[in-house]
Each structure stands twice: as C-alpha cells, then as structure tokens.
C-alpha cells in the first residue's frame, strides 16, 4: 500500500507522537490492536464495556513489571489478539530481523557492516522483554531458544506483551515492533483483536479475589463427598487471607461479628474502615463464598458463615500458629525503595560461648574457655601418634570452646497514626512489628503519634501477646505531632536497657503540630537532632512527595531516608531487613 521508504518516515512520525503523548502522561492506541504507553494496562471488566483498555496512570510499567526503581524507563506495547497460541520465540526472531531491515533502510551503509548491524540489534534485544501465552523472556534469550514458562494469571494471555527499554530518541522503534508483532500474530493464523477504546485512570488498591480459587465444601463439591485434607487446607488458606487483612484471629472474629444478628456486636462499614481500611473487597469475597448474605436488615452471616466462625473460635490455637508462621515469612527480596544518605555508626556485638563446638588452634594464645574433655581426647590421640610412653598434654592438644557473637538490634517503631494512615498503612506497620518480633530474637517497641501527642503503645518487649494487645489500640485519627513522637521514642530508648537501638519512623506525611515552638517543621528537626545526640541509629520511611522535608529530618538525626511508592508490608519489612543487615556489616568491618 505504502511506497518504498515510507516505513522509516512512518516510524519516525510515530516516535514523535509518542514523545508528545508520553510527556503528558498519556498512552495511545496504535492502529487498532495495539496499546502503547509507559504505564501498566488493564481490562475493565467492572464497567461491563467490552473491548476497553485502561491505562493505569499511577502504575509505571517498568516499576510494575520489571521492578525498576526509576519511572519512565520502559515503553509498554500490548498487541491484542483473538484466542490462540503464540510462540514468543517467533516474535523475538521476527523483531530481530525486522529491526535489522529497518536499520538498513535508514542507513544503507549498514548493509555492508554486518557485525555492527548485529551488535546494534543485539543491544536492543537485551532491552526488550516479550511475554505471550506460550512463554516469556528477554528477546535476546528467546532468540537463542531460551524460553521461560508462562504462568497462569500473568500479562500476555490475550495479547503479546512487550516491554522495551527505550529512550525518547528511540521511540520510532515502537512502530517497528508493533508492526512486526502483528505480522507474527497473523502468520500464526490468529486474528488481531480490535481495542474499542482506551481510557486513563488510577488503579485502585489491588486485592486478589481469593473467592475465585478457594473451595469450601458447601460451595463446590456438589453432591460429591468433600475429602478431608483439601477441605482443611482451603479453610486454612481462607483464614490466612482474612488474617492478612484484619490482623489476627480475634480481629477476624470481630469482623465476622459485625455481621451477626446480635445488634450490639454489629459494626457499620465506616467504623470498620477506620481500623482495617477498605473492607468492601472482603465482604464481596465472603459473599461469593456463601458466607455472607443480603437481608432486608443488611448483610448477615449465613449458616455456613456461622459454621466458619465457630471453626475459627474452636481452632484458635492452631490458626494462630499458622498466622504466626505466615508473619515470620520473609517477603521476596528486592522491594521498591530508594535510599538517601548513609550512616557510619558502629554496632556492638554480644559474645557467647558455643558449648557444641570446640577449636583446636595452637597458634592462638593460651587464653579462652578451655574445653577439657576435648583436650584430653586430643592429647590421648596425639600421645599415641607421637609415640609418647604415657599421656601428656601439649599446647597443640588444647581445645577451646568456640566464641560466637551476634549483634542484637532492638527496634523502636515510631508510627504516624494521623488520620491519613488509617486502613492499609496502619495494618502494614502493625504487620512489620509482628514480623520483627516473631522472626528475630530482639525486642520491639512501638510509639505512635496523633492528634496532639504521642503514646508508647508497646514498650520494649519480646512477648507477642503484649505486642498484639498494644497494636490493637492503634486507631489512626487527627493531625501529625511528629516531634512529640520522636521525642517520646528517644526517651523510651534512653530509659531502657536496649541494645543497638534502631529507630524506624514510618509516616506518609510531615509534622503539622509543633512541640516546643510554633513551628511544627522546625520542632521535628529539633527532635531529630536529639536522636543524633543520643547516638541512636535512625531511619525514616516516607513517600516521595515529602522528600524535601524528610531528607532534612534524616540528616538532622544522622540517619537515612527511604522513599517508597507505597507503605506496604513488603516494602517496610525489606527496608528494615536491609538496614539491620547494614548494622551487622558495620560490626564485621570493625573486627
């Protein structure tokens, strides 16, 4: 249709358009089948408008799909198609050759520079990631036949999902890629699907639909006898899902009681929201599982719902163990955070003697915890080997108990409990506290600040009961008296015998209630300087929009600032774990 040579122009002009729209945080539909942006894309089943694709303006594609920290690195190209299987290797090979052709068309001299040409394409091939419903991988690897399996639920099952790390000058390649992918789809005997329209918007809190795969005996086993094991695992998993949301068995019970017929225990959605954040999703899920139902008087538990509640009450002990097991679990490594600043503080180690292990080191001096039995055994053996006429103990026979050392790090969380922290952020901070206590040997304390003052909700403790009880009193509301919170934590640390204290400030805001003066911000910095004076290790976990102030605060406290997109539990745990590891390394350097 088009004349010779126009493809280069066409691609270049598309490149210009993309620069324009991407600059405005927008995506486009390229042709009819392809959606291009620097964001994540989603279908819109909730709208019941079919064929529509939503561009999620609050979800950067590189961050979401490739765990990049910086935004706008990646162009996201989705080519939608009718059901059918597409081999990602075919896509990779076709793009490879097509790019090469394109470069030659652009610069005919390349025709004779095969090596250079190959290198150019290979460079791009390492920056392009392809997923289809038959597999995925970096283009370069796919080109060499290395395919990773496609997993259920991933991007790519109704479209070819391409992520390309391109800079602005390279956006023309988007056209080359899209056109090539389309060609492969068609060659595979599959029709392209027409994207009806695109819309832009934020992605709402992502929560999985566990009702989709959890099977309860009364729900799916129609007429079939439910086997005991699956049954148990399903109920367990449901409880774990609810615990992730609500906290623990007591809270699950409290939540379910909000739907009992006992009017005194019923709680309105608004009241629930304050503590647990958005509960609508879970209500929907429970309804789908047949545990809740609508009545003229509102939602109530069904017979099965009551049964489940009873099960929870009767198996509290085991369920709590399962929940604790889940809480101890380390999240996948990585995490999306940015670290600003660094500290050089030394941690002190605790030494103890390991009675299980002895060392025989004749080079060492004559001091240490002598392991008498081991020494006698060694002497007996060596006397024999040396040919001594009788047992003699020489220096080379001496065995000492091994000394081990570890660095205890007692953590004090300083949690912003102002109104904006209600719901998921509150839950994440509580989860972090539980995780630290359960997965380590050290003490944990929690200080919250809200309204006009701060509270020690959990003193330094190793006792999970005390911790959980304290955490359950956190009800975010009001303003942000950060200076008071920090000051309370400093005093708490000073007044207790804590080892290598680490103060972790978690906030989604900046101070707006002062402590000593009329200036809340200045007071916050002042409190920060007290942290430094007391040589307390300090980190602050906040969000990008408050970077300017929080960076100053971290500086004042001689600490480090971590910025996250989202104050979720995985981010929080990964940051604290990262920091604790730093503290341990700082000891090792000393030795």
């Amino acid at each position, binding site marked *: 249709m*088009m004349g010779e040579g126009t493809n280069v122009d066409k691609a270049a*002009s*598309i490149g210009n*358009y993309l620069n324009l729209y991407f600059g405005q945080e*927008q995506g*486009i*539909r*390229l*042709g*009819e*089948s392809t959606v291009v942006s620097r964001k994540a894309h989603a279908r819109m*089943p909730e709208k019941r408008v*079919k*064929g529509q694709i939503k561009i999620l303006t609050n979800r950067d594609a590189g961050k979401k799909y490739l765990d990049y920290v910086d935004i706008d690195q990646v162009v996201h190209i989705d080519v*939608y198609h*009718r059901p059918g299987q597409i081999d990602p290797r075919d896509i990779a090979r076709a793009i490879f050759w097509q790019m090469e052709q394109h470069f030659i068309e652009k610069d005919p001299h390349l025709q004779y520079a095969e090596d250079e040409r190959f290198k150019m394409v290979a460079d791009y091939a390492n920056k392009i990631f392809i997923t289809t419903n038959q597999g995925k991988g970096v283009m370069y690897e796919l080109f060499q036949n290395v395919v990773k*399996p496609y997993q259920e*639920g991933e991007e790519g099952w*109704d479209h070819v999902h391409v992520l390309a790390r391109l800079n602005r000058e390279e956006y023309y390649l988007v*056209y080359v890629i*899209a*056109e090539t992918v*389309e060609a492969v789809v*068609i060659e595979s005997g599959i*029709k*392209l*699907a*027409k994207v009806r*329209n*695109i819309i832009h918007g934020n992605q709402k809190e992502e929560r999985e639909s*566990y009702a*989709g*795969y*959890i099977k309860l005996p009364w729900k*799916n086993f129609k007429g079939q006898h439910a086997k*005991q*094991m699956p049954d148990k*695992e*399903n109920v*367990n*998993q449901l409880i*774990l899902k609810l615990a992730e949301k609500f906290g623990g068995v007591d809270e699950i019970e409290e939540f379910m009681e909000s739907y009992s017929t006992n009017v005194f225990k019923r709680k309105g959605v608004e009241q629930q929201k304050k503590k647990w954040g958005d509960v609508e999703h879970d209500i929907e899920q429970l309804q789908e599982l047949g545990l809740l139902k609508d009545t003229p008087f509102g939602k109530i538990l069904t017979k099965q719902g009551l049964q489940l509640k009873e099960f929870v009450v*009767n198996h509290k002990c*085991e369920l709590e*163990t399962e929940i604790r*097991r889940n809480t*101890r*679990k*380390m999240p996948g490594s990585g995490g999306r955070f940015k670290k600003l600043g660094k500290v050089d503080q030394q941690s002190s180690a605790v030494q103890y003697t390991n*009675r*299980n*292990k002895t060392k025989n080191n004749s080079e060492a001096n004559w001091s240490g915890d002598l392991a008498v039995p081991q020494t006698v*055994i060694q002497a*007996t*053996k060596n006397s*024999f*080997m040396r040919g001594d006429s009788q047992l003699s103990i020489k220096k080379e026979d001496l065995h000492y108990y091994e000394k081990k050392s570890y660095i205890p790090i007692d953590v004090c969380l300083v949690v912003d409990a102002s109104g904006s922290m209600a719901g998921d952020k509150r839950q994440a901070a509580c989860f972090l506290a539980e995780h630290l206590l*359960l*997965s380590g*040997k050290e003490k944990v304390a929690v200080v919250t600040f809200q309204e006009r003052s701060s509270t020690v909700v959990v003193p330094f403790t190793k006792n999970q009961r005390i911790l959980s009880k304290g955490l359950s009193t956190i009800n975010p509301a009001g303003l942000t008296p950060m200076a008071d919170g920090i000051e309370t934590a400093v005093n708490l640390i000073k007044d207790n015998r804590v080892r290598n204290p680490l103060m972790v400030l978690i906030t989604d805001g900046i101070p707006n209630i002062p402590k000593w003066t009329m200036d809340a911000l200045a007071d916050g910095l002042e409190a920060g300087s007290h942290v430094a004076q007391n040589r307390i290790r300090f980190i602050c976990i906040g969000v990008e929009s408050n970077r300017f102030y929080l960076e100053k605060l971290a500086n004042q406290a001689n600490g480090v600032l971590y910025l996250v997109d989202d104050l979720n539990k995985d981010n929080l745990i990964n940051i604290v774990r990262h920091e604790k590891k730093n503290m341990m390394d700082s000891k090792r350097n000393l030795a």
Partner: protein
Amino acid sequence: MIPFYKLERYEGNEALFDLVTMSIVSSYVGEPLHLHAEGLRGTGKTTIMRASRQILPNITRIKGCIYNCDPEAPHCPHHRHLDLEQIAALGTEIIPMPFLEISHSTKVGTVAGSIDLSRLTDPAHPEAQLLPGIIPQAHRGIIFIDEINRLADTSPEITDILLDVMGNKPGHLQIEEAGLPVVDIPVNVSIWAASNPDEDPGPLEEIRRQLSDRFDMVCYMGRPDSLDILSNMLQENSHMHRVQKASQTEKVNDAKHEALRQDIIKWGHLYEQTDLPDFLRNYIARLYIKHNLESIRAIEAMQQGAVLHSVIKNRDKVQITDVTYMIPLVLKHRVDGDTLVRMINDTDSRGNKDGILSFRGKKNKPREEEEEYFANNARALKDMHRGELVNTEKTLTPN
C-alpha cells in the same frame, strides 16, 4: 512407652501413622524416605515416631559390622573389598533395624564419627581407629531428630552433614578425623524430624530452607478435638503408668507388633514390585509444569509416596487418590498457600476407579469472558493509512 498399636488415632495425627509406616517399608528395601512432623506441643508427634521403634523389622548384617553392611552389598571400609567367600566366612547376624537419635546438643564427632577412644586407650593393643558416629551406624535404618529447627539454628555443621546425607538416595557421608584417612561412604538412612514451628527459633523453612526442602514429606499435626479421644488418651496414659509400675511392660504387646512387622516385610516386597502407572506419572509431571514447581525432589517424593501409600493400604494398583493424598504432604512446605490450594482444587478425582482424571476447567471469571471481550477483529498496521495510526482517548471516545 505406649505400645504402637494402642496409640490413639484421630484426624489430626492419622497421616503421621501412614507416613511412619511408609518410611519404614521404604527404608527396609533400601530407599530412604525423610519425614518431618510439625506441630504444637501435645500433638503427639514425638510419641508416634519414637513408638514406631517397636514395629521395626529385623535386618541382616555382616557379623559385628558396626556400619551395618548388607552381606549382599557391603559398603564399609572394612568389608567393601571382600568377595562373597570372604564375607561368608565372617558370618552374618540379625539385628533390629537401627533407630538412633540426634539431639540439638549432639557434637559433630558423635554424629559423623571420631577416633575410637576405647581402642586408643586399650592397655594391651592401643591403636588409632575410627569409631563411626550415629549416622553411619544408622545405615539401613532411621535417625530421629527432635527439635530440628533448633539444631538447624545452632549447629550449621551438623546441618551441612544432613544436607549431604539427605541430598541423594542413597546419600553420602564423609568422616574426617585428623591423623586418620578420610572415609567416604554411602548411607541409606531415613531422617525423621519433629519440631514446633511456634517455638524458638521458628519454622525450619525460615531457618534453613534447603534442609526443609530435603524432607520428602511434612506432616502438619493437628490436636485432638474430640472429647472421646482425649479421655481415651488420658486413660491409656494412666493405664501404662500402672503397668509400668508393675514392671510388666514386656508382655503387653508383642503379638500385635509382630503382625505389624510381618506386614511391613510383606509391603516391602510388594513395594519393590509396584510401579507408578504411566498416566499417573504423566499427571504428576503436568502438575509440576502447570504450577511451575521448582523442586524436582517434590515430584520424586510424590511418586515414591503415592506408591508406598497404595502398598500399605494393600492395594495392588496405585490410584489417583494415592497421588492426591500426597499433594499437601509433599508440597505444603515447599510452595505458598495459594499455590497449594490451587493445586488441590485443580484435581478432580471423578471416576478414580478407572483412572480417568482431568484438570478442572478454569474458574476465573475473566477467562470465561475471554472469547467475547473483544467484539471485533482489528486491521493490521501495515494495511492502514498514516492518519489512522495514532488514536487517543479523546479521538476514540464518542461524545
């Protein structure tokens, strides 16, 4: 000790009885099966494991061989070079299948081996000889480790040894003692472990993931939740107490235990002749691929477990239910809860008698709509005019 056959069985501990029996059968024919029982205090995990000692069958070894050399396949440094005649000359003896314990305070030398002090200090003929430790001495038998999570936490050296011993079937062990030649021997030992994931230092998989994965099966113990069972258990305990006081412990049980022992020997022979049918092997392989499992050990354990389970249930053919029964036992410690539940719910054992099985159809809603989400086909870019290529939200949205 309460006789094995008198131990109370209920829903929460039933699987462990099966697993223990399966592991003994498997060990008897020379194929270890490593088990880990996890549960709170009072779930009886250690009681069951220790009591099963009473039903262990006998094995034959070269007379006096502390490494338990099988006369037909000697492996120890003293006997592995001998020919059949020389071995015959040494004679054989019958011993109970070994059952030894390692605790979290056991020293490395005791576990692997160390110099034999009694030989060394023998006033008449002192000599430097290796005394094999608990692991080589448990060859062809079982080692029980209570509180394995504490062991993994405090004793990385023993953990490393266990990783080698459990790494392959048979595993291997290297015994090093200064001044003596290094001994490297194969060991066929089933490791049984117990732990309370809720006590310090927490679940094994968080302490040493690798070691946790080496266990073929993990049994998550539940507590008895019926009053009848509890009162039976109490009665049994107090009865035993009185019996022991009267010091009649020996007489209580042996006929029943002997019957169990004979069963185990019979099952052992049956196990050697039973193979997993192709369609089930195929099915396990599909599970592995579909759910993207990482551990090959897991599917090997599933095979071994399914066959053993069918054998101890006196079936002549392995059924799909033998496989599905294994799924939580083999996978719960290896995959996350969501994956496990999806796998369990994925299997549909309709008509398991004729061995037909199928994966359930996709349940996810969006998938059902798959066919219809896009109403029209699209034209290809190469067939379009330049002016049609770029479409924005505005140009696409009808007013």
